[in-house]
């Protein structure tokens, strides 16, 4: 089955991000396809490479990056939600005159159209959030 995933909550603050990751990993292990993971609302914070969680805790951002590298996942951070919350790639940082960028490897920033497209393309769009 072709799955799309929507993550609406930030890392550590809410279990939705963990559940979405575990669901994606389990689905891939079962041979399903994950055509896109879209991060919205505070979910965009799953894409910052600057998190430094305690060493005895899971590294949520790194985990997403590794899963993306392993399975060529398309991890998309909503641009409008990202701009509000200070998530940016190099291009966005330059465009807005910011002195830093913080997007983690494997993530890309794009528009809400990518979420709609995932809904159209996927057999199921699974939403993780409050």
């Amino acid at each position, binding site marked *: 089955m072709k799955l799309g995933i*929507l993550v*609406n909550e930030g890392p550590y603050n809410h279990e939705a991000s963990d559940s979405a990751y575990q669901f994606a990993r389990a689905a891939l292990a079962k041979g399903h396809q994950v055509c896109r993971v879209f991060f*919205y*609302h505070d979910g965009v914070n799953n894409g910052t490479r600057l998190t430094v969680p305690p060493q005895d805790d899971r590294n949520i951002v790194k985990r997403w990056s590794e899963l993306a590298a392993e399975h060529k996942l398309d991890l998309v951070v909503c641009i*409008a*939600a990202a701009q*509000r919350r200070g998530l940016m790639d190099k291009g966005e940082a330059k465009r807005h005159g910011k002195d830093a960028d913080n997007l983690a490897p494997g993530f890309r920033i794009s*528009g*809400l*159209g990518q*979420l*709609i*497209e995932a*809904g*159209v*393309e996927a057999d199921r*769009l699974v*939403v993780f*959030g*409050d």
Partner: protein
Amino acid sequence: MTEENAGGRVKKFLYVNRKAPYGTIYALESLEVVLIGAAFEQDVSLAFIGDGVYQLAKGQDTKGLEVKNFSPAFRALEDYDVNKLYVDEESLRARGLSAQDLVVPVEVVSAQRMAEIMESQDVVLSF
């Protein structure tokens, strides 16, 4: 905007609004998805359940909150051919509201009818 109509397929999208308009950003950002998504020529419906019904309440005054009152944007949905708005009857009644208290025309439906509407969708986005 055929280039944005992914593969020319039309699916039934339902946006379920469950949160109060202010206090969290869910309602505002949900509406942003609806407005952007409208350009994709899908079959769009909106549902309002629980505190989500407050999103449509008339007379919202957000000056004291120092945030934008985005309720007028619901009136623009019609221009995007989004006109299937379903409001849960019990949620309205529990909050002392009726269809006349809302900024746009809606269809007030029972919980059972709402379940049927959800069942008939291809994509359900819950905010």
